[in-house]
């Protein structure tokens, strides 16, 4: 599971971070005995060949650098340098200078068994391809010889050479199928690999026997070609999975937060996962709190929207408990990390999530369902053919078995084994280019069955960031003055103000009082203040104060109020309308207060909305829908959505969601466009249509081919042609998804 991946990204946690200047990098640097050191970095915004060249050449130019090699596919960078000449911190600083953000990681923790398995598949594929090509070359000679005057001696000679190539190749390259088939038989079930393994092995054995007695028909070419095609499918499948996995790993490395720990000799940066109870961390305004803990010093406001979905900030003072993932809004805090005990919000959420996941019905993939029908039918057809010829037709058992084997060969499961992975690779590749990561292999299939979409409000339908709401009520002069003050602060409301003013240069001499506001003297004109109601000396009056706000107070001018609201994503209304047009029901499940949820629901035209939902309420709602036979897509980002994401039929979350939620979600989309949900849905539906079409093609092909094979009319030439033809047909059909219109721009 992805949770495991997130945990394995960092190096051995028992090793304490070295207490040096660059101790964020320290644990990742691997030192060699010859005085060189190496580090692996993940470079977030390396997109093109130009980036690779810029990064490599500017790092190569540093004295002492031995090797700088970027991997564009995985967005990774490997550096090796002489330790006496360079400091690792300098390397990251150089990357920052040219505009790239680099994060260290431990390559051994990311390398897993699957990568080895993928290489094995590729080796098998190469051997099978080599053998198939050469055997086919010999087979073409034999087929041509049947029309010319090739003597039986030459034909047997060519058959023996074919056997010499095909038999070792079948034995070696078929291992992925034999292993899986044996495991299935041991568990007393049938999977797709059982008929495949049986067909390949029987073909090889019967062809060898035919060759040994000097018969005219050997099927070595059909056996090895079948293996080759199916290995392509197997490889594509594994490649799609590994691509999704590396995308998920990249996300978890990039989002791993660093914390500033206050120690005996000043502050040092430590990865958030290495925090231990009792450590004291400093959290500046605007930063995310790295761990659960208790406030030691400082007063501030905390944005808990990621945990509860609520947009109004909560006041925080010494002694209060704070949770990882919440954002410190106004004042600097120091927080003592508390033990991760069973009572934390996170532990409760994880318990709910596990319970929801356990209750969810298991999805059986289309290919597996089809294989469940396919395997018995094929075996039965072959058996009936054998018995029919041997017992009823009075044929000797050897030729009867030969015909039965030709039935097994001709019912090539390429629509299952090759076309389904091909559709999946193309679909997930298309979504990846649009910034949508498919994290689970069967997520797209489940997505195609969806009939209801449930949205969370804060951070999903909305951006989860404050925006200036009353632009019309504020005059431009006040806005630009306020923005120049605000540019001096990192407070989220101040940033929103600067953004609303279209950018502003910070004014000199601005003084910030944490938790209150900003103050500056302009031209000896008295104090100009920007901040809370109390800071600006305005009496409380009711009616206006319903959301986050800032006031601007100038001497001799009435104060100006700036109201902020969490605005909807730009295409939220469009997305909801598009989902409706596709006949999907849209519901809104939010943890926020009723007034805020009603406003959003009315703006988007969602009738079915629920406010003040606790995480267990959301799960209960989804399970009620599932019990009514609805397939629900849950879109959410907060920690409070994580159990619902796990409970839903399929789930999607934005890339900036809480770690737990992103891990629970089946798909993750990057960027601010909610339209990703529509794109993912339409791509999934197109993929499902193609898979079903391929099944129809395969059924049609088998309806024609199987009676011919059972009648004993299929010669090796016909078997090879029919099998290759059907494989190519289904694969080409799968690749049509690439041509589909509506592919989103990168």
């Amino acid at each position, binding site marked *: 599971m992805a949770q495991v991946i997130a945990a394995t990204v960092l190096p051995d946690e028992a090793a304490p971070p070295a207490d040096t200047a660059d101790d964020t990098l320290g644990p990742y640097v691997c030192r060699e005995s010859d005085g060189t050191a190496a580090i692996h970095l993940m470079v977030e915004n390396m997109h093109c*060949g130009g980036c690779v060249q810029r990064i490599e050449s500017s790092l190569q130019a540093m004295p002492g650098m031995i090797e700088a090699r970027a*991997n564009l596919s995985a967005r990774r960078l490997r550096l090796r340098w002489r330790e006496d000449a360079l400091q690792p911190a300098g390397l990251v600083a150089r990357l920052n200078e040219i505009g790239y953000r680099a994060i260290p990681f431990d390559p051994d923790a990311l390398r897993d068994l699957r990568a080895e398995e993928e*290489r094995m598949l590729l080796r098998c594929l*190469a051997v099978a391809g*080599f053998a198939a*090509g050469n055997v086919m070359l010999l087979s073409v000679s034999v087929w041509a010889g049947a029309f010319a005057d090739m*003597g039986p001696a*030459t034909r047997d000679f*060519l058959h023996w*050479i074919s056997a010499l190539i095909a038999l070792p190749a079948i034995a070696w390259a078929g291992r992925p199928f034999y292993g899986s088939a044996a495991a299935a038989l041991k568990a007393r079930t049938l999977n797709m690999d059982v008929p495949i393994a049986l067909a390949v092995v029987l073909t090889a054995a019967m062809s060898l026997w035919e060759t040994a007695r000097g018969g005219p028909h050997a099927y070595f070419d059909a056996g090895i070609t079948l293996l080759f095609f199916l290995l392509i499918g197997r490889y594509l499948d594994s490649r799609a999975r590994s691509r999704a996995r590396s995308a998920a790993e990249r996300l978890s490395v990039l989002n791993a937060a660093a914390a500033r720990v206050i120690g005996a000799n000043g502050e040092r940066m430590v990865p958030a996962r290495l925090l231990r109870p009792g450590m004291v961390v400093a959290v500046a305004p605007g930063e995310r709190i790295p761990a659960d803990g208790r406030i030691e010093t400082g007063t501030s406001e905390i944005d808990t929207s990621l945990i509860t979905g609520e947009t109004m900030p909560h006041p925080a003072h010494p002694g209060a408990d704070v949770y990882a993932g919440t954002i410190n809004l106004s004042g600097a805090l120091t927080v003592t990390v508390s033990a991760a005990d069973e009572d934390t919000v996170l532990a409760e959420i994880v318990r709910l999530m596990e319970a929801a996941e356990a209750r969810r019905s298991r999805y059986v993939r289309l290919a597996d369902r089809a294989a469940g029908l396919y395997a018995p039918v094929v075996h039965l057809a072959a058996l009936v053919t054998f018995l029919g010829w041997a017992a009823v037709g009075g044929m000797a058992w050897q030729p009867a078995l030969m015909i039965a084997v030709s039935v097994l060969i001709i019912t090539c499961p390429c629509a299952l084994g090759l076309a389904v992975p091909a559709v999946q690779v193309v679909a997930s590749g298309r979504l990846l280019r649009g910034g949508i990561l498919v994290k689970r292999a069967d997520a797209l299939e489940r997505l195609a069955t969806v009939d209801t979409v449930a949205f969370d409000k804060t951070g999903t339908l909305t951006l989860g960031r404050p925006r200036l709401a009353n632009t019309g009520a504020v005059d431009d002069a006040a806005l630009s003055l306020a923005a120049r003050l605000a540019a001096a602060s990192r407070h989220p409301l101040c940033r929103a103000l600067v953004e609303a003013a279209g950018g502003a240069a910070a004014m000199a001499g601005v003084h910030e009082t944490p938790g209150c506001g900003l103050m500056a003297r302009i031209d000896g004109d008295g104090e100009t203040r920007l901040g809370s109601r109390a800071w600006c000396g305005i009496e409380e009056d009711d009616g206006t104060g319903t959301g986050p706000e800032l006031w601007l107070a100038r001497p001799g001018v009435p104060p100006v109020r700036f109201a902020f609201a969490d605005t909807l994503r730009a295409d939220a209304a469009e997305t909801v309308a598009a989902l409706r047009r596709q006949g999907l029901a849209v519901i809104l499940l939010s943890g926020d207060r009723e007034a805020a949820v009603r406003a959003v629901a009315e703006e988007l035209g969602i009738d079915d909305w629920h406010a003040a939902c606790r995480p267990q309420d959301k799960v209960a709602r989804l399970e009620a829908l599932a019990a009514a036979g609805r397939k629900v897509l849950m879109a959410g980002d907060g920690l409070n959505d994580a159990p619902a994401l796990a409970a839903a039929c399929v789930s999607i979350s934005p890339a900036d969601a809480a770690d737990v939620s992103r891990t629970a979600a089946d798909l993750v989309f990057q960027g601010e466009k909610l339209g990703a949900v529509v794109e993912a849905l339409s791509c999934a539906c197109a993929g499902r249509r193609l898979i079903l079409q391929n099944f129809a093609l395969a059924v049609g092909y088998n309806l024609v081919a199987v009676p011919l094979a059972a009648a004993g009319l299929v010669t090796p030439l016909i078997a090879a042609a029919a099998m290759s033809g059907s494989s190519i047909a289904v694969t080409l059909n799968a690749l049509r998804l690439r041509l589909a219109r509506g592919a989103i721009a990168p």
Partner: protein
Amino acid sequence: MTVLVWLIPAALFLGSIGLAAFLWALRSGQFEDLDGAAERILYDDDPPGKEDKAR
């Protein structure tokens, strides 16, 4: 038809050279960054010191 005795081993030998080359390329990590490799051919001036980093 005696020519087959020479021709078939010759064909197999040539094919196996291709197979060996592919397996070697796989082992030496040339399939690890297909996107990057496609771009690298376009760099016109290799920075000095790049020659010594055989993989």
